[in-house]
């Protein structure tokens, strides 16, 4: 995770690479944690759906391709 930002002054042409403030770094760390939690929740949800789907296909006695054909 980079701890710098780039500021380009269009009037002077100056390009600065500036260190993020402590508050900015903390905000980014919190965003990263929140995103990881969101990813983990989605992965768990996807896994649960895959299990439910497999169980349903098994109960119906059809394959995924046959299910797609029914829904087409």
């Amino acid at each position, binding site marked *: *995770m*980079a701890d710098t930002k780039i500021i*380009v002054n269009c009037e002077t042409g100056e390009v600065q690479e500036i260190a993020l403030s402590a508050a900015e770094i903390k905000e980014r760390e*919190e965003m*990263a944690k929140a995103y990881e939690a969101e990813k983990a929740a989605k992965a768990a949800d996807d896994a649960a759906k895959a299990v439910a789907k497999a169980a349903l296909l098994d109960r119906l006695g059809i394959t995924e391709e046959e299910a797609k054909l029914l829904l087409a």
Partner: protein
Amino acid sequence: MANTYTLIASSTVGAGGAANIEFTSIPQTYTDLCVLLSGRTTANGDSYGEIDLSFNGAPSGTSYSWRRLLGNGASASSANNTSDDAINLWQINGSGSTASIFSNATVYIPNYTSSNNKSVSADGVTENNATQGVATLYAGLWSSSSAITSLRFTVVYGTSFAQYSTAYLYGIKNS
């Protein structure tokens, strides 16, 4: 670029990466702005990262709205937000995608100095040099009467622009 496009400023990300790229003190002498982006993020092992666009400072408030339409060759999807702190602008290659592959996007901002609300249109492409390719269209609105004097591209999820990512800001005059 055609003669009507004038390069105002550009930026190339160095070895350390960058959390965001901001163009400040934008001249108020053009009619429209156009930004050409090429980038990749240091997203945490993901194939894709995302970029937000905000005006006159960091993402804040709820004055932005946006909608995107995304297609990957197999299906299309859409997303939107009517009250956001920035315009969710660009799905970009992440660190989990094939090495050295960069996404591209074009952002167009008409009448950026007017006292009307500011609209944004953008299109972007992202591919993995493997099995994935994504094309995305974006429409955004900043509900503000202020002229745009700066614009900032922020990498979301706490990740950063990778080295060699670039941004070129052009001004377009209608006369």
